[in-house]
């Protein structure tokens, strides 16, 4: 898994590539925490290059959402591959996190 953050005026875009599983989820968690600890609570998670995300990764998203909401912001997802949508739904992510179809709309939602 690789991570890359781009900062905009009202949100940071974190883009991950590869697999998010029990091995790699801690690094993702750290990257989200780094943004939130920096005082920024608007985050777009760009999943266009994510091949796989297990429940361990999905919990990272939900915990990040908790932290963002607490600071008056939000986490949103963008470019979620069709085949992983069902698991995002089953793991509760869809209830708690907005999912956008493209990056412009996601960034434009802040």
């Amino acid at each position, binding site marked *: 898994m690789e991570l890359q953050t781009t900062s905009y005026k009202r949100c940071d875009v974190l883009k991950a590539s590869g*697999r998010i*599983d*029990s*091995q790699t989820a801690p690094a993702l968690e750290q990257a989200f925490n780094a943004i939130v600890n920096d005082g920024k609570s608007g985050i777009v998670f760009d999943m266009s290059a994510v091949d*796989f995300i*297990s*429940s*361990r990764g*999905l*919990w990272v998203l*939900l*915990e990040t*959402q*908790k932290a963002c*909401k607490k600071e008056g912001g939000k986490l949103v997802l963008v470019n979620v591959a*069709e*085949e*992983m949508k*069902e*698991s995002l739904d*089953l*793991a*509760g992510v869809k*209830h*708690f996190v907005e999912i956008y179809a493209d990056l412009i709309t996601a960034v434009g939602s802040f």
Partner: protein
Amino acid sequence: MPTRKFIGRYENLAAIGKFVSRIAQKAGFDAAQVYAVQLAVDEACTNIIEHGYGGEGLGEIECACDITPGGVTVQLRDWSAGFNPEDIPSPNYTVPLEQLKPRGAGLYLMRQMMDDVQFSFDPVRGNLLTMKKRKTDSS
């Protein structure tokens, strides 16, 4: 049945995922179904490492996977203490976000992703988790 043995470490999850995905692909499953098989197996292996063995590098996982007339069967064997799957409640997402506990989606996802999930526990021959996914008309 094609069988491979892995040390119970998270770094092996990618290889295990690739192993079962390839067979699911060969079985003619579509992308969403292949993903479902990989996800169920990843959740199961994470549980074996985390809850069964109680940590990384403390035991092995034997993964067998094959195409069957009805679809695909995956068998995961481990030599941990075992548990009672009946005791595990389904996750509850009807609570407010702040009250959500970051736990308990793995078993639920396995059961949703696969058509049949069976545990059998044997202190001698090891615990066997058998998961089957059927090829439906759409695949």
